[in-house]
Each structure stands twice: as C-alpha cells, then as structure tokens.
C-alpha cells in the first residue's frame, strides 16, 4: 500500500541520516581529504590519517627542505617547527612568510625527544637522516617522510611527494611544470650538441687566502655536474671527484685539464671578486680560461645558486647563458629571476626589486 512505501522510504532515509551522523565524527579534522598514503624518497609507504596540519622539518640541511616546502602556500601555513642551521636561507624565508618568526626553532641535532613537543602530524627530513631519526620517531608513533631534493630528477619526484602530503596536487603540478618547461627548453637546445661544440668546463670552490693554490671540485653525483652537462658543457673534473664531498685538486691538475671555462663558487657571497683575483694571480697566467677571460663567479642571492635549493634553476639558466652564449642569446636572465620569485614564492615584484635584486652576487650582466 502507498503509505507503507512512504514509511519505508522515510525509514530508509532516516537510517541513511543516522549512518552519516555516525560516520561524520570519524572524518573530523579533515578539510575534505581522507586517509593518505604516500611513498617517500626511500620507497617507504607512509600511511597518514589525513593531510597533516602540523609539520616539523628536522635534521641536517632542514632549511633546504623548508625552502622547497615553501613553494607551497599550504607548506608555509602548516609548518610549525624546523631545525635551523645557517642564516641566509632563514632571511629569505622570512621575506616570503610574514609568520616566519612564529615558527618554533629546534636546536641543532634535535632528536625525537626534542621533536615530539612540537606536536607534529608529520615530520619531513632528508634521506640522509633516515637511520638517525627513523627508528626513534617510529617508536613514538610520529610518521616521517624522507625526501632528497639533491638533483633535478629527485626534485621532480619529491615535489610530487610534497604535493601528496600537503594534498595540493594542483600546486605541485604547477611547480613541476615551471621547472620542466625550462629543462625541456634547455634539453632541446643542448641535447644534440656534439662533443666538439661543448666547451670543457671546470667548477671549483675556492676561498682566497694569500698564497694558497688549492681548490675543491664537487662530486660527480652532485647538482653542479649535471648542471654543466645540461647547460651544454663538458665537466672536466669527473676523474678527480670521489663520493662524499668536495675534493681538493692542485693547480697542477687544473693546468693539466686546461679547461675552456672556469666557474668559481664562493659560499661567502664574493664569487666574482674571487674570480677576478684569480685571473690576476701570477700563478694562473698561461691557463686558456684565464687568457680568454672565461672565468666567472657563480651567482646567487641569499644563497649561491649552485646549491640544491629551488633557486638552482636560476643557476642553471645563468650557466647556460655563459656556456653556450650563442644558443642562449634570447634568454632574459633578470626576467627569469623575477618570474621565479613571483611564480614560485608569490613575491611581489616590488619586494623582489627591493630585497632580492640588491643581494645578487656573481658574474651577472
């Protein structure tokens, strides 16, 4: 009979309401997202109840990870604590985030005990910290995601990881596209270059002290080496570099390589000054790079652009203009700098001009 069907419908609807009412508390706290599962840089699958709202970044080079995290507005908001070592990146991030001073700063070498009071839903750290931080955080039930952010490939992968963690896949896509666009352009220009068309390039780190003639070259696996290759050059120092860190080479070895171009990296922000001093140094005369004037200081702003922080893309772009000036004729470097800071960090052009441009160092036009 008609009334029975109506009653049944109402009953069914009521049951549905009841079930929904019972389930709703279960979804409490989410901004609409459900449980997450993300595979981190070490291939571990991390299960989270939902997008974490409080994130702590810990371990060595935490600031570099924060720098990448800050490419996401959600990252800026949800990060509550970080381990700080090194001033320069901190200054930059203060520019990007007005709430920077509200962030909790952990002591150096913070362990699980120091991290726990910051109440994180998630801890993010570099893969190198896996052995040190993994088990203790596991023991107290704090999930941790390890990221790499060391090379162009891992940058791409780890940006996707952050996108999943922050539940901001759209933004992640944006960022990856930004990088990919430029990398594609570069690959197109330099991908087919024959060996003869690639100048031999040397990248050295050097701090000036009177009478010192030793320099360091970066390991083969690091960003600097891939940057040189992508920019259309031939890195000469690969036979010298052992894994681990910078390797010292003597002037004799550099003379034996006799590269076409030499790029000087200086982490104290005076790379072009150092390059100029070297060019004038008596010991260096006779090297082809010195005679042809092809010795440059690697640029940077708050931090040198050869470091594995997001601004490496600017370093790569600059390198391209120096290594293959002909092919890079239409590259507008300053435009790239602006585009980077506007699109990646949502900085106002006026702020960029006021705070970042004056800090630029290196052999820039």
């Amino acid at each position, binding site marked *: 009979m008609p009334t029975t069907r109506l009653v049944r419908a109402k009953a069914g609807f009521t049951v549905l309401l009841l079930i929904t009412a019972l389930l709703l508390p279960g979804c409490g706290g989410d901004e609409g997202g459900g449980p997450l599962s993300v595979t981190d840089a070490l291939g571990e699958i991390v299960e989270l109840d939902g997008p974490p709202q409080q994130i702590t970044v810990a371990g*060595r*080079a935490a600031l570099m990870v924060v720098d990448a995290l800050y490419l996401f507005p959600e990252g800026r908001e949800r990060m509550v604590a970080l381990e700080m*070592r*090194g001033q320069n990146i901190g200054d930059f991030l203060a520019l990007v985030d007005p709430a920077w001073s509200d962030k909790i700063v952990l002591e*150096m*070498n913070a362990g699980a005990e120091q991290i726990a009071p910051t109440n994180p839903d998630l801890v993010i750290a570099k893969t190198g910290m896996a052995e040190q931080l993994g088990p203790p955080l596991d023991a107290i039930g704090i999930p941790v995601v390890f990221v790499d952010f060391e090379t162009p490939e891992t940058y791409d992968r780890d940006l996707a990881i952050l996108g999943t963690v922050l539940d901001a896949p759209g933004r992640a896509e944006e960022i990856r596209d930004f990088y990919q666009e430029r990398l594609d352009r570069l690959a197109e220009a330099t991908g087919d270059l024959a060996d003869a068309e690639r100048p031999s390039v040397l990248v050295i780190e050097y*701090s*000036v*002290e*009177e*009478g*010192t*003639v*030793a320099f*360091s*070259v970066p390991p083969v696996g690091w960003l600097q080496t891939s940057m040189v290759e992508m920019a259309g050059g031939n890195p000469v*120092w690969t*036979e*010298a*570099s*052992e894994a681990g*860190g*910078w*390797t*010292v*080479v*003597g*002037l*004799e*070895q550099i*003379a*034996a390589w006799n590269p076409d171009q030499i790029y000087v990296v*200086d*982490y*104290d922000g*005076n790379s072009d000054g150092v390059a100029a001093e070297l060019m004038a140094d*008596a*010991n260096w*005369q*006779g*090297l082809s790079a010195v005679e042809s004037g092809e010795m440059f200081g690697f640029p940077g702003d708050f931090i040198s652009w050869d*470091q594995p922080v997001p601004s490496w893309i600017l370093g790569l772009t600059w390198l391209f203009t120096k290594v293959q000036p002909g092919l890079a004729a239409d590259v507008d470097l300053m435009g790239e700098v602006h585009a980077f800071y506007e699109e990646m960090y949502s900085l106002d052009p006026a702020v960029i001009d006021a705070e970042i441009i004056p800090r630029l160092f290196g052999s820039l036009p």
Partner: protein
Amino acid sequence: MLWPLALALLLVLVFSLFIGRYPGPGFTPPRLLWEDELARRLVFSLRLPRLLAATLLGMTLGGAGTVLQTVFRNPLVEPGFLGVSQGAAFGAALAILTLGSGSPPLATEAIASVFALSGLVLSYALARRLHFGGWVLRLVLAGIAVSALFSSGVGVLKYLADPMTQLPAITFWLLGGLSSLTWTGLLYLLPFVIPGLTLMVLMRWRLNLLALHDETAFSLGTSPGRERALVLVGAVAATAAVTAVSGIVGWVGLVVPHIARRAYGADSRVALPAALLIGGIFAVLCDDLARTLLAGEIPLGILTSFLGALGFALLMTRARLRVSR
C-alpha cells in the same frame, strides 16, 4: 757515514721535481721547462716550495720524535704528545670558524702556532702541579690531559661549524696536507724551523745524556732540567710551525726515529741527523704520492699514517738491521 743518506735525499728531491699531474699524471719531461712557460711556473712556484716544505716537515717531525723519545726515555712517543698537535688543530679550527675566508694572510697558521705552544706550556705547568709520580710520568699525564682538552675543543668547534663552508675546510686541514703551499708559506716556516732544527742538531750528543736518569745526568755535570727544557722548546716550536702549515701529519715522528736508531745505532750523535734525513725523504715521498697518485689531493696525514703504520709493523717484526758499525 751519513753521506749516502744525504745524497739519497737530494736525489729524491730532484726526482720529485719532475713528477706531478702536469701535463699528465706521472713524469714531467725536462724539456718542457724550456718550452712551456706554464710548466716552468708550476715547477718553480709550486712544486719546488712544496718539496722544500715537505722536506722541512719530515725533518722536523723526525727530529722532534727523536728528541721526545730520548728525553722521555720512551720509544713510543710522538710529537703530538704534549698537546702540541692538538693545540695547533684547535687554533686552526678556531681561526677557520671565526675568521672565515678573506682573513689576513696566514692568520690561521699564526693562531695555530700560538695554541700549539700554549699546549706545551700548559702541559708543563700542569705537570709541575701534579703530585703523582716522577717528573717524566707527570709530564706524560699532563700532556695526555691537555691533548684531550684540545681534542674535545676541536670536536665542539666542528659541531658549531657551518657544514657547507667551514666544516669541510676544518676536516681537510685536520687530515694534513701541503696542497696550498707557496713560497710565502715556506718563508713563514723558516723562523721557527731553522732555529729548532739547528738547536736539535747542535745538542745531539747532549741528548744521550738526557736519556739517563736525572741524578746520573746531574753527576756528569749537566743541568738536566734546563737542558731538557731547551731542546724540547726547540723541537716543539718547530713542530708547531710545521703543523700549523700542513695540519696534523702523524706517524712520521714515531716511526722515523726507530728506523734511524735501528740503522745507525742509538747514539743520538748519528741517530738524530739520520732521523732528520730519513724523515725528509719519507715526507717528500709521501707528498709525491699525495699530489700525483690521483687527480684529487690525498690528505698527507692519511698517507703517512698508512705507510708509517705499515713500516712500523714491518720494522718491529724483523730482526735488527744495522747499516754501519
């Protein structure tokens, strides 16, 4: 008696002048010196001062090792024993940390020397205040304490160092190397090393006496305390200067005196000059390997430790070898 050894040193020096990484790894053809200006400059402004510095380094460490072993009646003693090397390490690390790059010339070396000498002074002062054991034991204990103090200081500094810029510099310096030496660096060595070496050589016979017990040395008409202090200051000052330039280079000061004594007898009249020459040869050869073997510089301290330890083990297991008398 020592002429063959001196000749050997000379030959090693000349030979080393012609090996390096330019134009390729290994031997540098002499005719390049005429033809290639860069080669000329590399050999005379880079290799030559470096070889001389290596020679002085080896001589100083070999001589200081002999002096310390004799004066302390202990064949297992090293120059890095009275807080000298560790003090130098601390001073250099401190300089790198506080001054960074762009510091005044050789400031790092100067500060390291100051701390190295202060290590010695501290060890001596502490030893005088101890109430346990005879003088030699007290000095040993004080030296261990002061060395440990400075070593932990270095640890703290490394902890505080910026891992990007400062820590690698400190770590490389601690391993020991001559890669950044030029004529200027060599010149700064001389005011400490030449007097130190001269003093050790002049007092080489007196050293024998200082190996005796104090009362006996006294009965022979010496002032054991004063003479011991004199020869020690000379040895340590030279060691401090050399350590400040090249970083901590170990094992030379331990092994070379043993080789010298085995080959030439325990009499320091001969053993000390022999140790100087053998030390020089050893250091130059190690440095040759350090700058030639691989494209990158191998820290000198690693090579001397490896070869020195090997040599020491071989030496201790074979029967005595005597070259003369």
